[in-house]
């Protein structure tokens, strides 16, 4: 079985869902003839044609609006943001139109908005952001952030089949760096379920997206010092898998949350609140965050390196927490 990149896993998910269900259509900028800025939709125009792979004007609001309109007819449009930074351009369509549709008047809007997010590729302030938390704060949406090729494919399939608007934050740093063997048979990964990536008893490291990898590297380093950390991949930020988080905290009694998103208003704050509400008595130490600082994502390599959390920083924080 050949190894498949994270990017190819996404392309496979789109291809297989389009083959399975003619109600799945793609809409976005340069996704057809060009195959997408990162080639996530390469070959799909040739296979599925002009009616199912729709190149649009540079109009994020129109892309999401049209996707919502198509979904009202029972279609399942998958809209691409060329970079997730540009989702700011269609914030209103997502948060006011799509997210409130079912609550206000009972109209499901089964759309997926997918695209590359995250830093580490010297994209600068407008091609590197992690805008997921704007949407985690919006009832009616689901927010997914896969870390592995297996999950990217399986979660995207679930997102397409879901009856709600799902925002699917791919991590562009992982696109061609991650390679995995995928199951030969059809599979999907359910939304809203975290995955335990490494078991441990001394402390819990929660993360998602590209930060899973420095978190796992840190856990390996900590293990050499005799600190056994449990590493959990959130996979879905909304809805949050509280059960898995709480079960792990009740076992390890210490919690470290790592995210590439900036600090204030990041998911770590919400997770800390959930744990304090429901498992405060189980904690043997403060809940610790390792995150990016509260700045835009800078361009120059030394600046971006300083900005992004790394394994050494996670090890430091985990070591202090373990000895607390």
């Amino acid at each position, binding site marked *: 079985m050949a190894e498949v990149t994270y990017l190819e896993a996404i392309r496979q998910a789109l291809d297989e869902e389009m083959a399975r269900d003619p109600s799945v259509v793609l809409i976005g900028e340069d996704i057809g003839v060009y195959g997408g800025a990162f080639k996530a939709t390469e070959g799909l125009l040739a296979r*599925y044609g002009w009616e199912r792979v729709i190149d649009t004007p540079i109009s994020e609001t129109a892309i999401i609006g049209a996707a919502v309109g198509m979904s009202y007819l029972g279609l399942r449009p998958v809209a691409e943001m060329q970079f997730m930074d540009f989702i700011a351009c269609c914030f209103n369509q997502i948060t006011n139109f799509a997210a409130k549709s079912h609550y206000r008047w009972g109209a499901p809007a089964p759309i997926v908005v997918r695209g590359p997010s995250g830093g580490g590729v010297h994209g600068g302030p407008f091609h590197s952001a992690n805008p997921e938390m704007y949407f985690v704060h919006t009832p009616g949406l689901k927010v997914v952030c896969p870390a592995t090729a297996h999950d990217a494919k399986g979660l995207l399939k679930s997102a397409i089949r879901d009856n*709600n608007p799902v925002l699917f934050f791919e991590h562009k740093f992982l696109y061609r760096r991650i390679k995995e063997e995928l199951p030969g048979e059809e599979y999907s990964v359910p939304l809203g379920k975290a995955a335990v990536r490494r078991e441990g008893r001394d402390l819990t490291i929660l993360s998602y997206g590209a930060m899973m990898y420095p978190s796992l590297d840190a856990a390996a380093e900590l293990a050499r010092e005799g600190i056994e950390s449990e590493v959990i991949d959130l996979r879905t930020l909304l809805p949050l898998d509280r059960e898995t988080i709480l079960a792990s905290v009740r076992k390890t009694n210490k919690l470290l949350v790592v995210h590439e998103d900036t600090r204030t208003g990041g998911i770590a704050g919400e997770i800390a609140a959930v744990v304090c509400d429901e498992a405060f008595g189980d904690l043997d130490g403060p809940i610790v965050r390792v995150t990016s600082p509260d700045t835009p994502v800078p361009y120059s390599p030394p600046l971006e390196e300083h900005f992004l959390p790394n394994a050494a920083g996670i090890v430091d924080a985990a070591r202090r927490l373990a000895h607390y």
Partner: protein
Amino acid sequence: MAATREIGRNATSKGALTREQQLELYYFLRLNRTLEEQLTRLFRQNQVVGGLYLSLGQEAISVGTAYALGPGDWIAPMIRNVGALLVRGYKPRDILTQYMARYTSPTQGKDTTSHFGDLHVRHVVSPISMLGDLIPVMAGVAMGARYLGQKIVAMTWIGDGGTSTGAFHEGLNLAAVQRAPLVLVVENNQWAYSTPVARQVPLVDLADRARAYGIASSVVDGNDVLAVYRAAKEAVDHARRGDGPFLIEAKTMRMRGHAQHDAAAYVPKEMMEYWKARDPLLRFERHLTERRVWDARTKKALDARVERELAEDLTFAESSPFPPPESAEQGVYCEGCHEIAPVWQRPVAELQPPKSSVRPEWASFAGAFTAAAVSGNGARLSRAKSAPERRISPVRAAGAKSHPKSRAKSQPKAGR
């Protein structure tokens, strides 16, 4: 007279309306007006728990345009399009309970005004308060329906102020490049809240917006229901034929403030007087009398029917409960509560490989290179080809069937 529970209906191909249809138009106009008079009373009695937004003076646009649609067509009304909802088969009780925030309202108290819809029977998309956003959504409805093989038209409305939003331009542009069957009705009611149209748009005719997108357009006297109907029929036929989007500018006047709390002191008195003399309901009544479409008895019977239906629905609304508080937390997500199944009206095999690689006719212009297309001259030629300008002068738009006095007047320029 046809039962009002039917959803829309097309007249003869030339757009002439039968006597029954004209009487039905009157019924909807009168129902729209009387319903909003009732809502004003309820507002004063604090029975309307939020704001009240009236379409007084603009009823002919909502009713006349929606009347040109067929049962399979889709609409997305704005806040002043109660008349379109009535034509589409909604009842006064739906509007009353929405404003009165009752559990029996179409949104069960979750939202107010005309903010409700129905995907399956009446094909109505609920508006949101952010102006212009319905245009890309309805472009998507038009594109999606075409994909499914449905020969439908999507219609939505926007005010003069709403044409300044980014969503208006993005949506219209996408619809235009897709040649989507979208009809956009621009209700130029002269005021965007307190800001006159001249400070919103540097154009005499808002229909000129259409030229930027190479789509067909017309201008119509929005206070003449028959002219509005004919303009809408032309636009709907155009879109249904596959000739792309159509923009209608209907010139009218908002005869109240932006909402009920707004006394509209900024509107010149003479402007109000000018338009009061052109009230769409009175004009249509005069037409029906002078053309002997009805007699006093018919009018009396129709008015009595409106009063009776409204009284029944008011009783229903007033006796309806408020929603149970805990329902505030329900319905955020669709988890198995709806079966989502598109209605295919073409063979699905056309949309799967290898047949799916065939480029449809409407997309055939995309990517074609011609030397003429990249020269300035070619650009003009191609626009003329893809977008026949169908300008209807206001004088002509008033039409042979409208009141002779209104026909004699040219389109007012008040407020500019």
